[in-house]
Structures are given as structure tokens and as C-alpha cells.
């Protein structure tokens, strides 16, 4: 491994001692995935119902699109710092910032999923006597599911790549390797942390891509 930074990072990861204990790679990865899941879940609980509502009724779309666009422009490190100043160090502050990060993608996925249903199909469903709720759950969501999952996929990849910031305010996750490596000029450790984050992001992206394909409705 010729001493290149990436080679040294792989050597760092290959050390069996790094794979055990509370600051070992498996523990840090689990923390990292846990924070990601929590952030995306909370964001989904907010954004998906709102997105479906907006997509189905067509009301408030302008405001939602604008708010989501504005939220995308917020720098997450700034939010982590701001929230931590307001509510102290710990998991709540970064978690809120990750929710803000994840909401726009989820929201866009949800309303574009509903919108993507052919108006003729929706009208046909309505003419058959379906209630609005039935139209949403039996027609619009099934037809738009790949788009909805696409939103989830975008949000997940963004959050998993950003969750390292949880370590900025006293939490765990793979960010611990990155900050410790950066601060102590231990670049192999820093790069190893980054490589692990990239690996998680790619794996989650591919998994959700698979889900996206499986949920595509037949015959459309």
C-alpha cells in the first residue's frame, strides 16, 4: 500500500483493533446509521403527508416549493451550531438540522408522485365513485411510488453524508474519525472515516434504487 493517503487509510481500517469496542468501526457505523434513520424518519413523518396533501389538492404548492427550495439553501453546519446554541450539545440539535436537510427532497418526491398520475386516470377513478382518500391511496400513490421512493432516496443519501456533523457537538458516528483525524493531523484516520461514509452512502443509494425499481407499477 505504498504509503499513499488512501492506502494508509485502508491500512488504518484493516487493523483488527479498530473493529471492536465503543469507538470501533461497527459501533460508529451503527450510530451513524441510527442518526440517519432517525433524521429521515422524522422528516418523512412531516414531509410525506404534507407533500401528498399538496400534490392531491394542488393547494399551497407555490409556498411549499418555495419553502423547500429555501430550506435546501441552508448550510447544515450553521444550523447545527445555531440549534446547539439554542438547546445545548447532544443529539437534538444536529437531528433537527438533518430533518431540515431531508424535508425538501421528501416533500418534492411526495407531491411530484401524486402529480405524476395522469389526470384522465384520476378523473376515471373519481367517476367510478372513489372517495378522495381512495383516489390518493389506490391510484395516485401506487402510480407515483417510484417518485416518492426517489425522494426518500435523495433525502437518505444527503443525510447519511451529512450525519458526520453530529460529532461536532458531542455525539458519535463516523464523524468522530473525521474530526479526530483532522484535528490531530492523522490523515489516514480522517480519510478512513470519509471512505466509510462514502461506502454507506453508496450502499444506501443502491438499496433504495432497487426499492424504487421494484415499486414501479406494471403496465404503465
Amino acid at each position, binding site marked *: 500500500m505504498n504509503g*499513499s*493517503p*488512501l492506502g494508509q487509510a485502508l491500512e488504518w481500517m484493516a487493523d483488527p483493533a479498530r473493529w471492536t469496542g465503543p469507538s470501533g468501526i461497527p459501533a460508529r457505523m451503527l450510530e451513524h446509521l441510527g442518526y440517519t434513520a432517525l433524521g429521515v424518519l422524522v422528516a418523512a413523518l412531516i414531509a410525506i403527508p404534507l407533500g401528498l396533501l399538496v400534490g392531491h389538492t394542488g393547494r399551497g404548492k407555490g409556498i411549499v416549493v418555495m419553502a423547500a427550495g429555501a430550506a435546501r439553501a441552508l448550510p447544515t453546519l450553521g444550523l447545527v*451550531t445555531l440549534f*446547539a*446554541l439554542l438547546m*445545548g*450539545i*447532544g443529539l437534538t440539535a444536529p437531528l433537527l438540522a438533518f430533518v431540515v436537510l431531508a424535508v425538501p427532497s421528501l416533500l418534492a418526491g411526495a407531491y411530484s408522485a401524486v402529480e*405524476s398520475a395522469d389526470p384522465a386516470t384520476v378523473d376515471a377513478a373519481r367517476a367510478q365513485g372513489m372517495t378522495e382518500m381512495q383516489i390518493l391511496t389506490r391510484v395516485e400513490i401506487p402510480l407515483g411510488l*417510484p*417518485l416518492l421512493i*426517489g425522494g426518500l432516496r435523495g433525502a437518505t*443519501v444527503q443525510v447519511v453524508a451529512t450525519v458526520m456533523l453530529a*460529532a*461536532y*457537538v*458531542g455525539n458519535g458516528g463516523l464523524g*468522530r474519525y473525521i*474530526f*479526530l483525524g483532522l*484535528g*490531530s493531523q*492523522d*490523515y489516514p484516520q480522517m*480519510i478512513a472515516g470519509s471512505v466509510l461514509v*462514502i461506502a454507506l*452512502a*453508496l450502499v444506501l*443509494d*443502491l438499496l433504495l*434504487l432497487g426499492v*424504487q*425499481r421494484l415499486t*414501479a*407499477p406494471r403496465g*404503465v
Partner: protein
Amino acid sequence: MTIRSTRRSLLAAGGTAGVVLGAAACSSSDPFEEDTAQGGEEGTAPSDGGGAVGSSTLVIGSQAYYSNEIIAELFAQVLEAEGFTVERQFQIGQREVYVPELENGSLDVLPEYLGNLLQHYEPDAPSASPEEIHSALGEALPGALRVLDFAEASDQDSYTTTAAFAQEHSLTTIADLAGIPDLRIAANSEFEVRPYGPEGAKSIYGVDVTVVPVEDSGGPLTVQALTDGDVQLADIYTADPAIAANDLVVLEDPESMILPQNVVPLVTEKVDETAAAAIERVIEQLSADDLVAINQRSVEEQANSATIATDWLGEKGLV
């Protein structure tokens, strides 16, 4: 619809892979060289930019740290008062960037800190008194560079606590922490591996402490973790006005566990005796309280470094 969305997601996946490959390509060319390229272009002279640099011009640099820039400005103004032409190259990033600039003569003067400067040349240098570090620097520095006298003012890591906690446990030095259970210190994560981190505290003072990593280098989040009671201790730089503002107590370090970081001018051979004497007049007057007061004006009034420097030099009768 299906086909289109699949194709789009494939494109998206391709895009992601492209970004990753791009990043990997960057990291295979030496990423540590890039740092060196930064910095130099930033912050050129606010007063006499663009002038030709004659042999009598002294180029003064500063770190990208507001307090360091003010000290550099003090040196600059006192030299100008002495009749030197001064060029300012402030806000240069890290030591790895500006030390070579001094070594090759692109910079002539830069305010440094004793311990960090010594560790740049001797990474394993043990902690010692400021006098010992100063004389060690005399030997460690390359021929073209020397340090002038160091100031009383210092800006170093610390074990800092709240007035209430200090009173409750009658704390004056770090040694007094011995035996207090569940001590937590908010600090950057590298504190964990520093000689004055938990291991040093254990071996030198018999104190058990765990690090709660807060990565803002003793900034507002670290201070708040302490004042909120999330931690009992925090690593806050001793010249930080937040110490006085929040009624915090810096625990003394009688065994010199923490590397002293007194302000010390690092200069090249171009700095002659007249210039050195002028700079040392500033150093002589720069007490610990002065440095805190200077930083306070920057943090609280948002005053610029030139104004702060002019006012301070006037007060001390140095210009």
C-alpha cells in the same frame, strides 16, 4: 413513465459515481499540497497594497486568527512609527503554509506562540516552562529565522471550569480535581490524543476525565456546554474574552503539563536591531490582561484590528 424514471435514476446513479470518482481522483494527487496553495493570495496589504517591495520593506504576516492579526497589526504600526515601510500579508492559514514563506524570505515578521512553534520543528518536544521553550526554539529554528523576546501574554489550552464548580470543590489548580468522579471536559476531539489530554491529566495530576468532543475550538458551543452544566470542564484558550464574560475559572497548571503559548515574534534576518527593538517594546508591554482586553474589543465591539492596535499603542505611549 417507468422507462423514463428508471433512466433518470440511472443517470442519477451515474452522477453519484462520477462525483465519487472525481473525489477519489483528487485524493490521489497529493491533497496536502493543496493547503499550501491557499492562503497566500488572501488578505494583502490594506494600507499600501501594490507598492513595490524594496529591500527596506518589512513584510508582516498573521495567522487566520483575529487575535493574531491584531498582534501583527501592533508590530506593523510600531515599525511604521519607527520609519520602516511595512507590507501586510494577514490571514495566512496554517503554520505549514506561512513558515516556509518566512524561511524563503517572502515574510519577515509573524506573531507566533512558543509551544506550537517549537512543536512545528520538534513534534515530540515535551512541555516545559516558557523560558525553557524559548531557549529550545533558539536551537530548533533554522538559521534564517529567530525569535525575539516572548510576551507575558499567552493564548493556550486550559482546564477551565465555572466559578460555582470551582467554589464547590475548592479548585485552584488542575491537581485539585483529583478524586472528583465523572469529570467531563468539552474540547476538540484531538484533545484526547494531546499530551495534556486525559492521559496527561491522569499521569501528572492523578485526575480522571473524559472528553466530550465539541469541535468549535473553545468557541461559543464549548463555552455553552460548560455553562449549561453538560460538562464540568472545558478547554478554552486563555486569551478568550468569554472566560471573563462568563465568570469562568482557568485552573492553574503548576507542573507545566499544558504547553505554554506565550506570544513570541518570529522574524527573519531582514529584521535589524532597530526593528527588533521596536517589536520588543510591544512585547514588553503585552500582558495577559492586555491580550484579553484587545480580543474583547474585537469580539464585543467588532472593532477592526488597525483601530484596536492604534488605540492600544497610544495608551501605552508606544507610538
